[in-house]
């Protein structure tokens, strides 16, 4: 792979970066300031045959256009929303992602967020650390998670893993998907609003596409209601963030556990003072174990490409 010129778009993982540096010809996009990105790409366009991106910075149309020698984009994510897939199809550029290896972590986090929001775990932790237990007594009563109806948007790998976990808490499961999935006992709703109206915890677990942008809008949040909890482990743009803030501040939505935002790392500051939200800095797959597996998958795909073997996890 030594002759493979790889553009790494973001310092996403030290191990991945070291391996790419050691085994390939590595170009680090962030070493050039944003104003000089164009020149940076032009200067190295002759060498760059692969791009490794992630959920923060992928390969949009401009980037792909600037790299005439580009053969493969190997994403350090399962989500493909930051890659211009249509352009890749047109140019015959291969695309790989990291499915399966991060399914469990993301599903674990969805359940962790649901319990954290309903039981106010981070809030209770801050309460104790501030000395309030001594001065004000026990933290107030919270809400039970077990037995709550869970509605899942997207019943793919991650959605199914969330369902399996929630079932162990005696949560009745229902879902919305582009089409009904045979072979499950879960109740299907053909619209997200109906799903929300019949769920106490609504979990976003689908892919981000033009069709699913703002799939959770004001109407859905109102249907979920003042006792409902929204969990987003998908992508920020799945949820109309401005409406989310209003719904929470006005009490039309009971609570939210959010791992992803529309303009990461920026998070609406109105959320910071709320007790009924848990906010996470996009840590869905953020464990030592899973990031190593993801990195190995990226490297494995690049290796396969260079040795003319079948790609491990091709999308295109």
């Amino acid at each position, binding site marked *: 792979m030594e002759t493979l010129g790889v553009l790494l778009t973001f310092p996403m993982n030290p191990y991945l970066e070291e391996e790419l540096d050691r085994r390939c010809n590595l170009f680090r996009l962030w070493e050039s300031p944003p104003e000089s990105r164009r020149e940076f790409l032009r200067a190295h366009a002759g060498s760059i045959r692969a791009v490794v991106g992630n959920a923060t910075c992928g390969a949009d149309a401009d980037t792909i256009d600037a790299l005439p020698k580009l053969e493969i984009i190997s994403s350090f994510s399962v989500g493909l929303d930051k890659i211009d897939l249509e352009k890749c199809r047109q140019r015959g550029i291969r695309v790989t992602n990291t499915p399966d290896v991060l399914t469990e972590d993301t599903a674990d*986090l969805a359940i962790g967020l649901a319990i954290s929001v309903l039981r106010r*775990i981070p809030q209770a932790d801050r309460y104790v650390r501030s000395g309030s237990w001594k001065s004000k007594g*026990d933290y107030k009563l*919270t809400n*039970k998670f077990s037995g709550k109806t869970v509605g899942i948007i997207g019943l793919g790998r991650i959605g199914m893993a969330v369902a399996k976990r929630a079932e162990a808490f005696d949560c009745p499961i229902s879902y919305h998907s582009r089409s009904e999935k045979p072979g499950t006992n879960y109740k299907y709703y053909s619209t997200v609003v109906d799903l929300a109206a019949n769920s106490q915890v609504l979990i976003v677990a689908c892919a981000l596409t033009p069709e699913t942008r703002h799939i959770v809008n004001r109407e859905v949040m109102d249907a979920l209601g003042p006792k409902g909890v929204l969990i987003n482990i998908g992508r920020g743009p799945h949820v109309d963030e401005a409406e989310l803030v209003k719904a929470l501040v006005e009490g039309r939505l009971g609570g939210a556990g959010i791992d992803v935002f529309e303009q*990461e790392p920026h998070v609406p500051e109105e959320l910071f003072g709320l007790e009924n939200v848990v906010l996470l800095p996009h840590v869905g797959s953020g*464990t030592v174990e899973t990031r190593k597996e993801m990195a190995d998958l990226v490297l494995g795909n690049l290796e396969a490409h260079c040795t003319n073997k079948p790609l491990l996890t091709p999308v295109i």
Partner: protein
Amino acid sequence: MAGDEPQSPDLPPLLLLRKPIAFLLSSLSTRFHLLKPWESPLPLPAFLSAHATTVQALLITGLAPVTAVILDSLPSLGCIVTTSVGVDHIDLLECARRGVAVANAGSVFSDDAADYAVGLLIDVLRRISAADGYLRQGLWTLAGDFPLGSKLSGKRIGIIGLGSIGSRVAKRLEAFSCTISYNSLTMKPSVPYKFYPNVCDLASNNDALIVCCALTSKTHHIINKEVLSALGKQGIIINIGRGALVDEEELIKCLMNGDIKGAGLDVFKNEPLVPKELFSMKNVVLSSHSAVNTEENILDLYQLIIANFEAFFSGTPLISPVSA
């Protein structure tokens, strides 16, 4: 006399030691003639003496202790109901000696306690509370991505106490593909999990220990220095039982020295006092004895309390009895 409700004396008398929340008080007052020492100018011992012949039933709220001295002042007592699951605040041997039946909250809280244990475990491993704080302090924009946590799925979890709560914790964690093993007073042949008669062995074969057992003289400091050492540098402790199940000083030393990886603690030796060394630690999650404190439980709990007393007064077996 002050402290007696001016209501129908046909209602069976029920003694409380501490004032409970208003909702419980009103639920009880329609069914029982409540004796409320906090409304009396008499000191407690005098109040108890004054009602010694009539008090057969006692409701314990807020973990108020029931000692031999209190039992001595209530010679007609036949039944104690506590609003908690734990009964370590009640001298069960003395109760048995005097023929006083004791009932607790049964399994009303078990789901909530199990949920909380799992929630704490996910929080410690995935650093949810710490990451939420990081974000709210503006550090995601200032300092970049949050450091990586640890995966839960597939980990080996050792449960101490496989009763009503422990078995529910096990069921939940199985759905995360965790391997479950346990230590209990006796092995349970009907469960599929591996039994370790020795807690140190349980610790050395697991990535996390969840303490769910009752506090008795046998289980005091069941998590001690040896167990923590066996658990090791990658190990996590979750305690939703009682503070005294864990040697708190040893635990803090291990956390400060990096001899274990982290802890989720709902209970402490001297509640509400929490050792301040814990306040600055990023690898612990703390809560104020809240594992069962949900709104949904409260109605179920009150119904159970009333059902227990009604059973007692009608001469039928208690609904959720506890044995010594």
